[in-house]
């Protein structure tokens, strides 16, 4: 057996020193890993928990929740149930949590928040048995089987309803899943629009980025470095500045419309509406994401040996055939990297659509923000975010597989 100078087995000494090296390397990464876990991974996990966990009803309405847990789905409310409901409503109204309860039910059945708050105000002044009659006197809506079915759903803090709602589905009285009314179907359309617009933007960045990357890669270094500045300057310029300048340019009273009128292309009365709609979103986002396509394409094209194309030409290929069969296939790694990066970034874009998108150019991110700051339906925001995050992570995983995150380059 081989041994070290001090008589230990060589294999063990080697394993030991390798283990020490591994631990040292890991210790260097550990602080950052912990930092990212605490400030980034855990917060997102906590947010995702809200998408399937909402105790707004179950915590503040314990007695009726217990009754729901003890009975079968579809059981009509009996005296015990009405008594439990009346007791919970009174307690919740006194603890001033009735609004939370109403809001929770309102998420699944719109228009019910005021039922809870107004009933709460009345039961605080006292409620006498029989409770079913008393509550129905306050508001006949308490007899609605749909309301009882909705409360049954909310009695358990764990729910899949927010996910159902984010794909435009809801539950009927029997708990069966069905599509929501036609005029309320927005989320699937928004997801579809987000992916469709991202695909259009990716295609446009490819069409615009390919010639530029090719030119930069084939020019001599000195010239291409100069021209590269024209690509890098937008890349380094603030996102808000670029969005603002597109707002200024594309306005009806803006530079482009003025120019078109001055050139006589359009009449003064028929100025084009190029902003606050999908066109605005597409133009601005294409401009903003173009460098992310050009840079990976460029770094791959730099490595393509020009003699392959020359060889193809000398063997009789036309320039188009040489490009299509020889040059283009070699650019595919760069194209794949650029396209995936642009698509991933486009799918989650928020700022630009919010500012230039109008109502037809809003993406799913804007809906998440709307639920966070407008309707305050945080569970809904979390469910939409979870679906979007899932899509992005799948793309990211593919990107890592095909390109490798360590091949990501900046400028």
């Amino acid at each position, binding site marked *: 057996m081989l041994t070290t100078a001090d008589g230990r087995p060589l294999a063990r000494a080697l394993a030991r020193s390798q283990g020490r090296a*591994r631990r*040292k*390397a*890991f*210790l*260097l*990464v550990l602080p*950052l*890993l912990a*930092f*990212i876990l605490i*400030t*980034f991974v*855990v*917060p*997102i996990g*906590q*947010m995702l928990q809200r998408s399937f966990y909402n105790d707004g009803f179950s915590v503040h309405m314990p007695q009726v929740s217990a009754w729901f847990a003890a009975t079968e789905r579809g059981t009509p409310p009996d005296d015990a149930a009405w008594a439990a409901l009346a007791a919970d409503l009174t307690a919740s109204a006194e603890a001033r949590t009735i609004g939370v309860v109403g809001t929770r039910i309102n998420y699944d059945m719109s228009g019910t928040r005021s039922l809870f708050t107004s009933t709460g105000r009345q039961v605080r002044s006292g409620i006498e048995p029989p409770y079913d009659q008393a509550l129905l006197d306050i508001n006949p809506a308490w007899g609605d089987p749909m309301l009882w079915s909705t409360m049954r759903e909310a009695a358990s803090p764990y729910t899949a309803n927010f996910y159902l709602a984010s794909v435009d589905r809801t539950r009927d009285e029997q708990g069966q899943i069905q599509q929501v009314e036609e005029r309320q179907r927005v989320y699937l359309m928004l997801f579809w629009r987000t992916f469709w617009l991202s695909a259009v933007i990716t295609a446009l960045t490819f069409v615009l980025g390919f*010639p*530029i990357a090719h*030119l930069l890669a*084939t*020019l001599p*270094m000195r010239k291409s470095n100069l021209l590269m*500045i*024209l690509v*890098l300057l*937008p890349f*380094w310029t*603030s*996102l*808000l*500045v*670029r969005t*603002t*300048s597109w*707002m200024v*340019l594309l306005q009806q*009273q803006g*530079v482009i419309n*003025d120019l078109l009128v001055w050139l006589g292309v359009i009449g003064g009365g028929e100025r084009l509406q190029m902003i606050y709609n999908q066109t605005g979103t597409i133009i601005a986002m294409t*401009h903003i994401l173009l460098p992310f396509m050009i840079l990976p394409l460029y770094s791959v094209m*730099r490595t393509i040996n020009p003699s392959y194309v*020359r060889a193809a030409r000398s063997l009789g290929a036309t*320039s188009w055939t040489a490009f299509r069969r020889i040059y283009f296939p070699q650019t595919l790694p760069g194209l794949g990297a650029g396209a995936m990066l642009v698509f*991933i970034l486009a799918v*989650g874009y*928020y*700022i630009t659509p919010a500012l230039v998108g109008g109502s037809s150019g809003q993406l799913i*991110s804007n809906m*998440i923000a709307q639920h966070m700051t407008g309707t305050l339906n*945080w569970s809904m925001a979390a469910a939409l975010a979870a679906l979007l*995050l899932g899509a*992005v*992570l799948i793309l*990211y995983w593919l990107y890592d597989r095909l390109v490798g*995150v360590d091949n*990501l*380059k*900046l400028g």
Partner: protein
Amino acid sequence: MAVPTYASPLERVWHYFYLAICAAIFFFLIAPIIVIIPLSFNAAPYFTFTPAMRSLDPDGFSLRWYESLLTFGMQNPDSQGWAFWSDAWTNAKWVQAAKNSIIIGVFSTLVATVLGTLAALGLSRPEMPFRRAIMAILISPMIVPLIITATGMFFFYSNPCELLTLFGFSPECGRLAGTYLGVILAHATLGIPFVIITVTATLVGFDQSLNRAAASLGANPRTTFFKVTMPLILPGVVSGALFAFVTSFDEVVAVLFIAGPDQQTIPRQMWNGIREQISPAILAVATLLVISSIALLTTVELLRRRSERIRGVTPR
């Protein structure tokens, strides 16, 4: 790129057509950024070139929007001399925003750069276990949509101790939302991927035998790091830090969600301006930001060349 001598006339025509297309795309890339610079000197409150501007009449141009940047929010904009400047320093909205942006940018860059460089050093060692998976996690703040990150941070920063209740503790601790610390931590998180990417890219060409040479000559690990490794990777670290700073300086979504009224940054102030009543004052800010990004771009480019020179990587 020249036309090859064997090109047919049609190919020559195509070649010049191709150059024209490229020129048009470069114009598309750069024109929107350049056009706001003259527009910010507009004397009229419009976003287009007025007839006076088109005829280069000096009356068509003015610095009024730059002045309005300074006076917006001031208590007594008509005061003179020292009183004017001290009022601007303490009350002007854009001055406050610039101060906040710089404070938050500098501290988040420090956090991101120190942690990111250490991690990049670890990740570049061949012995690093789970290298690929850890790298993917550390880069993910750049990939995950900002709105999702900001939403998660909003909940976490409102009650950072909620996490501990999962383990049975119920400590009391303050909010991070609405504090400088909260915004700094959030921006550090968002800047870290850029530091990791640039520093690991620098370390790819790093010759490990230099470290071994230093060690064999009797330097301890600390001396080796500060005297040998650090000077060589410094350009990468600095350009990573610049990326992190720009990320923070340009970030608005996390600020929207977790900053309080005291932490309004320049992008946040711009967001307000654009959403409410967009005035050419925004263009004046935008112009100042474009100028600063030109300065930054130049710095990064010079650093990159220096790095290539001292590492002996010749440009292809």
